Structures are given as C-alpha cells and as structure tokens.
C-alpha cells in the first residue's frame, strides 16, 4: 500500500485508529515471537540446570570477541533504526534512506561475523554430528549445548535475514518516496525485537559461569 499521504483503509474510521491498530498488532506479533524463542529458552534452561559443569566448559570454547562485536553491531543497528523511524516521522526522506541503508549494512555485518564464527566452530570440531570432538568427560552433554547454540543462533540469524529483506523493501520504497511513517515504525519494532533476542542470547551462550 505504497501511498505518499497514508489514507485510512476502508475498515477504519480514522487514521490514528489505523495507526494504533497496526502498532498494537505488531506488538502482539512480537509477543508471539517472545513465546517462540521462549520455547528454546525452556530447553536451554532444562539442559543448563541438568548439566552445569559441561555447559560452563562448552561455553568457554566460544569466542567472546565474536559475540561481543556482534552485540555491539546489533545495538548500533538498533540506534540507526530508531533514528530512521524518527526521520520517517519528520518526513525527511534523504536521512530515512541513509539510516535504513546503515541499518541494513550493520545487519549484514552481523551475519558475516556470524559466518566467520560458525566457520571457526566447524574447524574446531564443535558442530554436532559433523565430526564433533570433545575431550572432557560428557561429550553427549556438550553436544547438547552446541545443538542449543546452533539452533538458537541459527533461528536468530534467520530472523535477522528476514529483517534485512523487510528493511530492503522499505529502503526501495523510501527511495521512490512512496513510504508512509507507519510501515517504517513497524519494521523498526521488528528490528528492535531481533536485537533484544540477541541481548539475551549473548550472556546465556557466551558468558556461562566466569571466564579465566
């Protein structure tokens, strides 16, 4: 529905009613996403409660360098996204396009850092079922940790990719000047949510126990 001056869809009476409905609708979708990731967090909670030592040992095999930079990247992308929403609200098309491109760039940076990290994990034989090697006592439990690691971060990376595609379409529409303020704000809500998921995944996966 790319129209420059947003008009109300036929089922709404006023524009503000439509805007509130769209925002609240997105928030409910984000609540379902919290429950969606919540299921895997439940699996993580069970496994960490049952096997605390091996979780700490396995978590120390991950590189805080990668995790930390990725968290920083996503926080920056959240910042640029918030500024992009503000630019859209003020109708400043030039800045909106620039900030959207910045957010997409940071998202791609996150994925590339993630790619390198997955590669190093593969080289270090930490990928379950793909020649997984573990010297400590409980190799099956360690394999469980890395299953959780790859499932959680893989699902999150998928959501980042979807986010990048959404922001891409927003940028194209903004380029042609046919984007209202509501769609950008909704894309912003989604992007901030993806950032919040990583805000929790980083300490849960990388900072288990304390590092020497």
């Amino acid at each position, binding site marked *: 529905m790319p129209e420059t001056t947003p008009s109300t869809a036929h089922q709404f009476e006023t524009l503000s009613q439509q805007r509130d409905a769209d925002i609240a609708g997105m928030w409910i979708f984000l609540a379902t996403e919290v429950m969606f990731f919540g299921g895997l967090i439940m699996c993580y909670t069970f496994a960490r409660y049952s*096997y*605390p030592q091996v979780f700490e040992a396995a978590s120390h095999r991950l590189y805080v360098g990668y995790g930390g930079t990725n968290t920083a990247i996503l926080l920056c992308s959240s910042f640029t996204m918030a500024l992009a929403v503000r630019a859209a609200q003020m109708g400043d098309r030039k800045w909106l396009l620039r900030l959207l491109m910045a957010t997409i760039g940071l998202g791609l940076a996150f994925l590339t850092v993630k790619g390198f990290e997955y590669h190093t994990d593969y080289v270090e034989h930490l990928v379950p079922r793909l020649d997984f090697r573990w010297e*400590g*006592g*409980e190799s099956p439990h360690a394999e469980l940790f890395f299953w959780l690691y790859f499932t959680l971060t893989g699902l999150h990376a998928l959501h980042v990719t979807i986010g990048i595609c959404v922001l891409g379409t927003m940028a194209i529409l903004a380029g042609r000047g046919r984007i209202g303020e509501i769609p950008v704000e909704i894309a912003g809500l989604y992007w901030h949510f993806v950032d919040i998921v990583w805000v929790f995944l980083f300490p849960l996966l990388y900072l288990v126990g304390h590092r020497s």
Partner: protein
Amino acid sequence: MGFQLFPTSASANAGEVDAIFWALTGLSLFILTLVFLPLLFFAIKYRRGSRADRTPSKIPTWKFEVTWTIIPFFVGMGIFAWAADVYFHIESPPANALQVDVVGKQWMWKLQHAEGNREINELHVPVGRAVKLTMTSQDVIHDFFVPAFRMKQDVVPGRYTSEWFMPTRVGRYRIFCAQFCGTSHAAMTGWVDVMKPADYQKWLVTTGQGESMEAAGKRLFTQVGCSGCHEAGSKIHAPHLEGLYGHPVPLDGGQVVTADDKYIRDSILLPGSQITAGYQNLMPSFAGRLTEEEVMELIAYIKSLADQQPPDYAP
C-alpha cells in the same frame, strides 16, 4: 473372566483409590442434579406462553455468585488434599519390598527377580508382600499398568522409574502397556500371578536355574573389567565401591549426591558427568557395551557391597 462393571481390587492401594473414585462419583451426581433439576424446572415453568410470574427478582445476584464460587473451590481443595495424600502413599515404596527389575522393550516386558529368575510378560509374586519394580526402557516410553492394582507408571528410556504394589488376593491379573509405543502397543500385555507364599517359594526354586542378579553382577564386574580399577588391591586410583550404595558422594564440582541407582547407572554409562571429588576423569564409558539388564545386574552387585567396609578406611 466374564463380564465386569467394576475392576477387581487386588492391592492394598486399590481400596483407597476406589474410595476417592466413589466419592467423586457421588459429588458429580450431586452437582448434576444441582444443575439439571433447576434447568428442567425453569424450562418447563417459564416456557414461552406460560402464565408464570415473571416480575424480576430483587435478590442481589452477587450472593449466588459468591456461594457457587467459594463452595466448589473448597470442595475441590478437599478432594485435592485427599487424593494427594493417597498419591504420596502410592509413590513411596516401603523399604522391605521385594525388588524386581523391569526392562520395557518394543512390545514386550522383560522382568528379573533379585533371586535371578527371569520372565517375559509374566510376573510371579507372593501375596501379602510389597513388591517394588525398578523399570527402564530400551527404546521408547512404555507404561507398566496393572488395573487390578490401580498401579501405573511410565517406563522412560535413559532413567529409572519405580512403582510398588502389595497384592492382597491370589489370582492372575492383566498387565497393559499404557503409553503408545508403536505398532504392537496393544500386544505388549502380560500377567501378574499372585501366589500363596509357599507356592511362590516352590516356583522360585523350580524355575530359578539362572544365577542371582548379584552373582551375575559379580561375574560381569570382573568379566567387563571394572575389577581392574575398583578392586581393593588395584594400583589405579579409582573410588572404592564397598559401602558406597545409599551413602552421600562428594563430587568435584562441590555438590554432594547420594549414590542411588541413577548415580551408579550414570557413572557406568557417562563416567565424566559426575566425577567423585579427588579423582580424575579416567573411566571409559560403557554406553553401548552393556545391555540394560547387565547394568541392573552390576547395580545389584554394588548394592550388595553397600554394608561392607571399604578396605583402608577406619569405620
């Protein structure tokens, strides 16, 4: 077997479970009349076109609402407490119970008495003695269910679950598998034969040609190589198993766990998961090299060492 409307009650717990069942049936009938009679009466008295008095009643409705919120709540809590008490009793096996190990496998039950008798889909027990079943599964989740004893417990792979019963009537009672486990889930049934104690002893002897679980465990202990490290005289620094079963074990992570069936099973199959304080992680894992029955036999043997004194510790 003939036609029955109510299952035979053949265990000590069955009576208590039936009592709760009848109490709940009575309560349900009472509530049903409390709903159906007024429903019928109002439907007839106030049917359209009848000349009943329909001036709106003045009684505040919240009085009714509060009554039929509070009363069902407290009745519910009462039933909960009674059922929870009986449940706690059902779930606590007495200490002097006969030990029988059960291994569920896709579509049959393998049972093993402490004295060594092995049975498939059959369980002979003396009347009047509590029997504790320690169960595990080799593949999927099964469920050892004997309706006559009102007893049911899932049999989960990877851990031990236990249930107990005290048979009170001689006879043959059906065993069912009550958790869907595949194609022949319906064929995974069997019989519990409750016999008089004398007949039971005779049965033990006539069919007990196999070695007792303890003896089989002792044989396996040397045959598989456990004695190499855990025997008293061995040079390798490994924990002593005498006086271990049932006592607390300090782990190197700082926790203290009691050495029960689960601890010993995990130590055999996943040695690195719980390393005793002061020892290294040298023990190889036996997962895949021992069947569930052999693990249970080793545990029976280690249980038999429970009351011996470890060689070099002062009592």
